[in-house]
């Protein structure tokens, strides 16, 4: 077999898993290099892939397709390996073996999921993603991240259960497990499973709950994979489903509004993941070549600038130890480079011309404009306003400018700058040369980003959002506090539910246990010497009526005193024989 044939018969995820297996045995310095090497090799591997390649496997009477290449999966494949590379560069300084292994496992599983040709393989990679990402939430190792990680895992296990139930039902109904466009009753369970990972409200609260709790490097990886794999699965399984169009448009505004309310910088960005995924979900719901191209293009560029935003805000957290806007301010003097790198992400996500968001988000908005519902188009425009307001204006203004809090700043590792620089460059190159991205989209592209109409629309929206912010900036100063969201529904009643379902049964069980022990103890004491036991009880009863002091004294039981001689046992045995002999005699007569 030639190398190209081998590459086209095995999933590129394997190289990440091999890296994860190898990493524990490597010295600390070699681990970061291995991480980067693995992502480079996976990119080269994907370059060799040819559309239409597939590998079959028989397992438990199922005809699985663990590996399948088509235009949709190959685009996501490139994307995930590029992000793994940039993330690896950013996390070069990292010494935590566990975090590096988890990130490799997570990236590998995401890659495996987009090349999975059947639902069973998809489910397996889906759950491996959960293991990797769950560890990354826990990696900060403080009580708060521990609790958030547990909630994250529980929510995703529930989502995974819906997915598995849907897959099994689908298999029973259709007899096929191939991952193609899905419909019918079982598909709704699968849809719920996908919706949890895509963070579609009201199933989204895990995202702003968990991502800000992760480590600086962990949240960079987290922001890239889970939701985008879900976007891929929605695009493959549910393209053109109308409910997704509405859910996506509402989601885009919901995320943007909640981001504006937040005080924690990484929470603001987490809500913007929801908002941006809303654009993608709406595009998938709209369906058609243009909209799906838009969803994939946006997923691609979004991973880039969202990763850049998490990297630069992570750098602020790394350098200052603070992540609340109300505790930050005046950082421009000490962190100007980080500010400019952040702003590349900020203007990209806001859709400024010459940056990545303009050529991808524009495509989704254009698809909505020419789609069936103007309301969806308006909602997406409002979401764009919210995005620029909080990510492009509020966050950078209050963190790098605003009131100078005289914060002491630690210098950043070089790798962090390298990771941020690489992605900034990509955001700019893609913005200026849209064809670099359009060439890897699943459908032929018939869309011009740089038209007078699109530029006018963007400049109008951004100018007036900026003007309103400028007027209102003193009235929207960040304040400490959190904003309630749907996670209230399971976080607030949790202590009560815990009491009913865990504490109360545990206490009933423990009382029964104690009662059983007492009973067994009594039976054992009685059985050890029944006569002694009776004598003791008799003394207790007589002591109640006797007035002498001696009777009231506690009785010290001496078992030897009541132990019968051996002769007594022999006598009883002989007596038994006599009785048996008499019975036998009577019976014979």
């Amino acid at each position: 077999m030639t190398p190209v044939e081998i590459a086209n018969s095995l999933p590129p995820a394997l190289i990440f898993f091999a890296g994860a297996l190898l990493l524990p045995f490597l010295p600390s310095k070699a681990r970061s290099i291995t991480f980067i090497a693995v992502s480079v090799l996976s990119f080269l591997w994907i370059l060799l892939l040819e559309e239409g390649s597939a590998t079959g496997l028989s397992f438990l009477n199922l005809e699985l397709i663990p590996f399948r290449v088509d235009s949709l999966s190959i685009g996501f494949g490139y994307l995930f390996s590029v992000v793994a590379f940039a993330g690896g560069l950013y996390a070069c300084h990292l010494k935590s073996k566990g975090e590096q292994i988890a990130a490799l496992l997570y990236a590998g599983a995401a890659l495996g999921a987009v090349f999975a040709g059947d639902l069973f393989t998809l489910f397996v990679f889906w759950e491996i993603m959960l293991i990797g990402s769950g560890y990354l939430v826990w990696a900060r190792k403080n009580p708060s991240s521990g609790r958030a990680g547990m909630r994250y895992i529980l929510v995703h296990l529930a989502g995974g259960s819906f997915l598995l139930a849907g897959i099994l039902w689908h298999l029973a109904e259709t007899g096929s497990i191939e991952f193609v466009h899905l419909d019918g009753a079982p598909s709704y369970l699968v849809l719920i499973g996908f919706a949890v990972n895509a963070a579609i409200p009201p199933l989204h609260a895990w995202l702003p709950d968990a991502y800000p709790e992760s480590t600086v490097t962990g949240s960079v990886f987290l922001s890239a994979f889970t939701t985008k794999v879900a976007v891929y699965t929605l695009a493959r399984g549910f393209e053109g489903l109308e409910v997704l169009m509405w859910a996506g448009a509402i989601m885009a505004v919901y995320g943007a509004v909640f981001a504006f309310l937040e005080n924690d910088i990484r929470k603001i960005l987490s809500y913007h993941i929801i908002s941006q995924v809303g654009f993608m979900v709406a595009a998938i719901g709209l369906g058609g070549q243009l909209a799906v191209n838009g969803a994939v293009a946006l997923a691609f560029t979004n991973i880039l600038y969202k990763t850049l935003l998490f990297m630069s805000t992570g750098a602020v957290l790394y350098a200052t130890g603070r992540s609340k806007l109300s505790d930050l301010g005046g950082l421009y003097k000490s962190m100007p480079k980080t500010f400019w790198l952040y702003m590349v992400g900020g203007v990209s996500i806001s859709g400024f011309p010459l940056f990545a968001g303009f050529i991808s988000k524009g495509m989704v908005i254009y698809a909505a404009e020419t789609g069936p519902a103007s309301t969806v188009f308006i909602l997406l425009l409002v979401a764009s306003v919210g995005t620029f307001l909080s990510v492009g204006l509020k966050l950078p203004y209050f963190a790098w400018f605003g009131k100078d809090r005289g914060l002491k700043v630690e210098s950043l590792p070089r790798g962090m700058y390298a990771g941020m620089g690489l992605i900034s460059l990509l955001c700019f190159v893609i913005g200026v040369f849209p064809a670099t991205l359009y060439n890897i989209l699943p459908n032929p592209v018939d869309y011009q980003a740089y038209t007078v109409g699109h530029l006018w629309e963007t400049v109008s929206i951004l100018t007036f959002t900026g003007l309103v912010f400028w007027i209102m900036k003193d009235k929207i100063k960040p304040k400490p506090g959190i904003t309630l969201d749907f996670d209230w529904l399971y976080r607030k009643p949790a202590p009560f539910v815990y009491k009913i379902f865990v504490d109360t049964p545990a206490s009933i069980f423990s009382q029964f246990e104690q009662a059983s022990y007492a009973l067994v103890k009594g039976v054992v004491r009685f059985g050890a010497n029944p006569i002694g036991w009776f004598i003791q009880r008799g003394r207790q009863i007589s002591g109640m009526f006797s007035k002498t002091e001696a009777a009231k004294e506690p009785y010290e039981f001496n078992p030897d005193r009541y132990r019968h001689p051996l002769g007594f046992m022999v006598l009883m045995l002989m007596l038994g024989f006599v009785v048996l002999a008499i019975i036998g005699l009577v019976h014979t007569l």
Partner: protein
Amino acid sequence: MKVKLGMIAAALFIFILLDLIFGLTHGDDWWAEIPAIFALVGLVGCMGIIAAGKLVADKWLKRSEDYYDPS
């Protein structure tokens, strides 16, 4: 404040004028007839989000940082 509001009004006037002269807004729907519609979306949308945050969320959804901390 008056100066700032005046500047917004002036900017809106310029955008409406530009749109009317050069016909920059394209679209087949009714809203495409409104001059400088996207400027209005930016203006109203941004004020709407700030108002929603100030009036609704600050009153109903804001809690202290330790709201969920185990007691």
